[in-house]
């Protein structure tokens, strides 16, 4: 397949004129029959890689993705293109819907799955009845126990790939240190095969990076509101709790002229759809999101990303600020840092990682406790059903906790260091590239002058129109075109 051909296909299927960095190389190695690991930074259109390759291959493309919201968004993008060939096989399907989908599984060209679906026998049996030609592991860093987002059910993927007759593998991630890259390959590789690696720098030249240090939350909110009033364009603020996201969104609506909406797992599907569409159409200035949910937002002209809470690790930080400036225009990312950040993040770790006593109790009284332990319990169920011993599981989670703590420490060190922000990030991801630091690159401490220097000081309000439409007649004309 030649370059010209691929560009034609890109235009035919997606209406784009050119590839972004890393896309074409990824598609080429896949189409030439090589297992591939692509590390492409957020905003370079990872999903286009497997979608175009999938269209051009015979058979079905399976995509394993860790987040329900991400799957929903991807499937609705297929619907957007008018190709109703994708399905999300997730826990959101009702029993009868799932039965229907599995019975008609050969009707779909692209099948998105959550990893836990692949441990269900009726699912793997249905998949065995079709020709799976490409097996895509999205957010592939989740497979590595070294990584901050490790998902135990990703460890099972290797077995599934073997069971499905060893289809071609494409592993995708936005962030992976060399150690995690090696781990991904080691976990996925089939006997007597090898992986091609396509690695692009995590560096984002058009995003200015900076930090604001505050003493307490009151000061943080003051600074935040002041900052929002001076920033041009629209943006996202990331939070580590839904409650805070709601609270600050409310604060913004009350104390600024900006329109803000929270965006997290508590929203209904319809509300999420509406907020997303309004944001796309510039009817909302600021989205207050939790990390997991912000991933579905696919807007090119986001001018700023603010971290209200310190990110838990480099990987999340880089992925999240990478939502800014996908159009290549100058953008900015700011992290708020507060003295008790470490305390807050440690508490979040304690909330998600079961300790030794809990593990012991849970295994001993599994029959009584199953379904009660919520997030921690679900995590432990996986190991319980695998018949791991208490000692093994305790050791594993001790290790997980250490990994999380290391992630946290290196994030703290980053905040406290006075080196070039971008160089520090590259160093973390093992890149040797030297950043040409200048005044539009980054600053350790944010000053308002920066906005002038990089041309992001407020020029106009994005949203102004009143949202409620009083006249039903007006609504009707917006709904229906008279023929």
């Amino acid at each position, binding site marked *: 397949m030649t370059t010209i051909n691929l560009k034609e296909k890109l235009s035919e299927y997606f209406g784009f004129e050119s590839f972004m960095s890393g896309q074409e190389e990824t598609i080429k190695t896949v189409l030439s029959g090589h297992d591939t690991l692509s590390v492409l930074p957020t905003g370079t259109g990872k999903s286009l890689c497997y979608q175009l390759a999938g269209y051009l291959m015979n058979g079905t493309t399976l995509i394993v993705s860790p987040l329900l919201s991400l799957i929903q968004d991807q499937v609705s993008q297929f619907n957007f293109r008018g190709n109703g060939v994708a399905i999300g096989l997730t826990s959101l399907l*009702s029993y009868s819907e799932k039965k229907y989908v599995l019975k008609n599984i050969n009707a779909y060209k692209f099948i998105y799955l959550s990893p836990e679906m692949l441990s269900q026998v009726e699912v793997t049996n249905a998949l065995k009845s079709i020709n799976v030609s490409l097996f895509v592991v999205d957010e592939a860093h989740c497979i590595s126990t070294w990584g901050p987002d490790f998902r135990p059910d990703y460890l099972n993927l290797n077995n599934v790939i073997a069971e499905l007759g060893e289809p071609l593998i494409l592993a995708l991630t936005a962030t992976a240190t060399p150690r995690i890259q090696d781990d991904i390959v080691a976990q996925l590789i089939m006997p007597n095969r090898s992986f091609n690696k396509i690695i692009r720098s995590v560096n984002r030249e058009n995003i200015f990076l900076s930090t604001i240090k505050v003493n307490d939350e009151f000061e943080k909110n003051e600074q935040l509101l002041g900052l929002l009033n001076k920033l041009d364009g629209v943006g996202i603020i990331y939070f580590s709790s839904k409650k805070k996201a709601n609270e600050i969104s409310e604060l913004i609506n009350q104390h600024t002229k900006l329109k803000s*909406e929270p965006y997290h797992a508590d929203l209904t599907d319809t509300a999420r759809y509406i907020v997303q569409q309004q944001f796309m159409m510039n009817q909302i200035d600021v989205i207050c999101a939790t990390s997991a949910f912000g991933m579905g937002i696919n807007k090119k002209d986001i001018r700023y990303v603010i971290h209200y809470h310190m990110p838990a690790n480099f990987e999340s930080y880089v992925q999240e600020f990478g939502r800014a400036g996908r159009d290549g225009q100058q953008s900015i990312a700011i992290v708020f840092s507060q003295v008790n950040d470490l305390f807050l993040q440690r508490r979040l770790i304690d909330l998600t990682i079961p300790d030794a006593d809990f593990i012991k109790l849970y295994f001993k009284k599994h029959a009584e406790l199953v379904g009660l332990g919520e997030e921690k319990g679900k995590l432990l169920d996986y190991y319980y059903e695998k018949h791991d011993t208490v000692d093994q599981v305790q050791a594993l989670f001790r290790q997980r906790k250490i990994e999380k703590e290391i992630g946290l420490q290196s994030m703290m060190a980053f905040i406290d260091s006075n080196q070039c922000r971008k160089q520090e990030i590259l160093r973390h991801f093992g890149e040797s590239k030297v950043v040409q630091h200048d005044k539009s690159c980054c600053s350790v401490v944010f000053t308002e002058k920066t906005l002038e220097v990089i041309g992001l000081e407020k020029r106009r309000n994005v949203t102004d129109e009143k949202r409620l439409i009083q006249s039903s007649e007006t609504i009707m004309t917006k709904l229906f075109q008279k023929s």
Partner: protein
Amino acid sequence: MIEDYILQMFQEDPRRPNVVYSIIIGRNTVSNIYWGMRYNLLDYFGMDPQFSNMLFRENIVKLQKNKLLDENEVGVKLTSLGLERKKKLKKSLYQVKYPKLMNQYRLNEWSETLTLAIQVISELSFTNRHYYPIMTSELTKFNIKRWLSNNVKEKLVSQVHSELELFIKELDTNAELIFMNKLIGHQLNGLTNKQLAIELTLSEIETDLIYRDTMNYFASWIEQQEQSVFKELVQLIRNKGIISESAQDTMKFINAGLSVNNIARKRQLKKSTINEHLLELAMFDDKFPYQLFLTSELVGILTKIIGGNIDQYSFQEIQEKIPEIDFFDYRLYQIYRSKNG
């Protein structure tokens, strides 16, 4: 605001909060339905299947803290302060207009179905095929596809348009604003409940109630029309009635003259299950044949003991007085009395 609606579900006589919660989410057991009937809350049965128990509990605690509710060993009741507040709320708070419709339709499915139907028709009218459909269940997508193929596409746009116009004439201002502004289409993103609440200076729960009320009314309005392009869709989201199919089957055997023991044997069910069916039927079927199960003698004895307040004795207390009575007899008698005074 939610707490105001929760407050309204209580009275001066104590009510069990668990039962009130089960009524709100529509947990379909004979005991819940019985108490829903006793509390006169059956119209609100299943009004919000997604309502969280934690939120319910938090609000009960909050109301107790504010001295509006009080708890004793029997249950939770209004204080005199609470009673005063309830009277005020009756005037100031949005009251459900069509409580009888609350459990006739599966409202979440209906809302998702109608919104998608209108979005699809809207885009069809602009001959646009490239758009993000709202996120719905696969079943709803399938239903809409079938609906489209069962109708003449060219006519659908004008049919849907004129039917909407006709329907909104029936609505008051807030209902019309909420109903219309929640629609999604070619040049319309729709508004969330939260956004509507802010714009209309209502609470979110009031906005939601008005919407639910209006959607229920729309469904029943469609059913009453001689012709409606939406009829087929409403059929799909209609509840088959609150009486379970299994209980309906039991009724057929009763009508054919079989005894409870015979029905149990024939259907290979436990006798207690058949008795549950009978209680369910008694509650919802006004023509229930009590005389087949309650002797006039027993009714006489029970009425003599119990007098006016049929909730005052527990089953254990009654059993001490009439050792041979079983729970089924007693509960059936209570249903009989609450229906016939």
